[in-house]
């Protein structure tokens, strides 16, 4: 029973991770291969199992981006990014005309902008399956640049770090939700 439970939880986590970057049919095939090899190597091959999952994510993500056409996937991701940036700038301008910036305002604006980013990533991933991953990469690059060259110096560092973590997660969540929807369809 213990073996079955550990296998069930292992495959559930692995399935969730792979579902962020692979179409449903490929997730099942890949998991089947890994389970077979895990059984072949013995129970102490868990490290090998997880290293395979982690190492497979970048190559599978890149394949997913290429599958949808590199140029059109880039266009979908950049369009989503531009829409989000416009929305955030508009929101920020509207807030600052009403009240000075406070921590509470920062948290409130994150509570609005993160769900909107999930939606935009979902939409972009519906248009092109790899767009969510590309969007996550764009967020990483944009926030890394902000942190390095200190653009928008009035914002506290925690806001940028939150944007880095939550923005990347939001982009990946949108992409994963889109893949799950495709799976059901």
């Amino acid at each position, binding site marked *: 029973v213990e073996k079955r439970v550990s296998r069930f939880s292992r495959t559930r986590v692995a399935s969730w991770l792979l579902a962020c970057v692979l179409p449903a049919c*490929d997730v099942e095939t890949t998991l089947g*291969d890994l389970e*077979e090899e895990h059984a072949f190597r013995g129970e102490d091959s868990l490290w090998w199992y997880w290293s395979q999952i982690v190492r497979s994510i970048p190559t599978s993500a890149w394949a997913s981006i290429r*599958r949808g056409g590199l140029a059109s996937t880039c266009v979908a991701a950049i369009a989503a990014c531009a829409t989000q940036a416009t929305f955030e700038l508009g929101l920020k301008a509207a807030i600052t005309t009403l009240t000075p910036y406070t921590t509470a305002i920062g948290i409130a604006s994150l509570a609005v902008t993160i769900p909107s980013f999930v939606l935009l990533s979902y939409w972009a991933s519906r248009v092109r399956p790899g767009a969510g991953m590309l969007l996550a990469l764009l967020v990483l690059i944009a926030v890394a640049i902000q942190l390095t060259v200190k653009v928008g110096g009035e914002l506290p560092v925690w806001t940028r770090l939150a944007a880095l973590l939550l923005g990347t997660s939001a982009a990946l969540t949108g992409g994963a939700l889109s893949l799950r929807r495709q799976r059901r369809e």
Partner: protein
Amino acid sequence: MPRGDLLGSLEHIILLALVRLGPNAYGMTVRREIETRTGRDVSIGAVYSTLERLEMKGYVSSMTGEPTAERGGRAKRLFRIEASGRRALATSQDSIRRMAAGLKMRWRNV
């Protein structure tokens, strides 16, 4: 084979693995074959990405196999090398053979 369609190193190795494995070629057997014969520890994701690229080029085809208990009831995706894949492999092998001809002593002395 058009000039832009030269095989990459992993593509070349995977096509050779498909020839070796015959009807039993699927992700994990291909990965295991590469590891056993070359010592190269490729990820299953890299194997599938390369196989997908080769399928898009028309060099390999795939079909879904039967689900088995040892795979947790999941089906295999079996791959087969096509005639165009065999031609691409032969051309690539010939290119390497011609480029390497007469050089064995030189790189042994380096």
